């Protein structure tokens, strides 16, 4: 995505992350104690600036809009159940059900403290595709490898 955005000389890259995605990311990184990764989810030096217009909209409401506009796809990601995100999602939805506003509160709370967190590692180049990444191989190449090995 970053490569394509640069080709187009874009100044911003909008992603479809919604309130559920954001709250999950924050809680997951708290649970892993990974404050650097948490900070990086806000965007990094060397990457095109990310914007998230749906950040305060519940996933269910995004889905409702999709349904009304005939855009919805009812299939489920086959890898969803393997992830920590899956467990965090379940947990957060239970909290949201019993304590409405939990997801929003998590995101708001993080906004207050996020800027005090260190940015951590500097950006390097992926050995496979040459894109920006934080390790030796970028996440996209890592996932492609995982799918091919199955």
């Amino acid at each position, binding site marked *: 995505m970053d490569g394509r955005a640069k080709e187009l000389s874009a100044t911003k890259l909008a992603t479809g992350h919604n309130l559920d*995605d954001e709250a999950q990311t924050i809680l997951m990184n708290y649970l892993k104690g990974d404050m650097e990764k948490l900070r990086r989810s806000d965007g990094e030096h060397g990457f095109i600036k990310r914007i998230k217009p749906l950040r305060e909209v519940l*996933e*269910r409401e995004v*889905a*409702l809009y999709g*349904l*009304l506009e005939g855009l*919805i796809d*009812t*299939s*489920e*990601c086959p*890898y*969803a*159940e*393997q*992830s920590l*995100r*899956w467990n965090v*999602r*379940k947990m957060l*939805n*239970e909290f*949201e*059900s019993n304590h409405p506003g939990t997801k929003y509160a998590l995101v708001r709370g993080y906004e207050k403290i996020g800027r005090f967190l260190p940015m951590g590692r500097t950006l390097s180049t992926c050995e496979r595709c040459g894109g920006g990444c934080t390790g030796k191989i970028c996440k996209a190449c890592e996932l492609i490898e995982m799918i091919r090995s199955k």
Partner: protein
Amino acid sequence: MRITVRVLPGKIEKRVNVSNDITYESLVTQLKINPEEVLVLKEGKSVPIDDKVEEGEITILRVISGG
């Protein structure tokens, strides 16, 4: 009232007995599904989750995206 509920994705069809004044939210909870994770459709159209259940084709659409 005896109703048939389809749960998507997954092509699951359930027949359940419900009292006449039950809401869609209670129906979803009764099926052990978190109302936060679904949209409820009546004859293919989205209905508010706190509306009373009416007879007809009811679909529970799980709005879950990938990991």
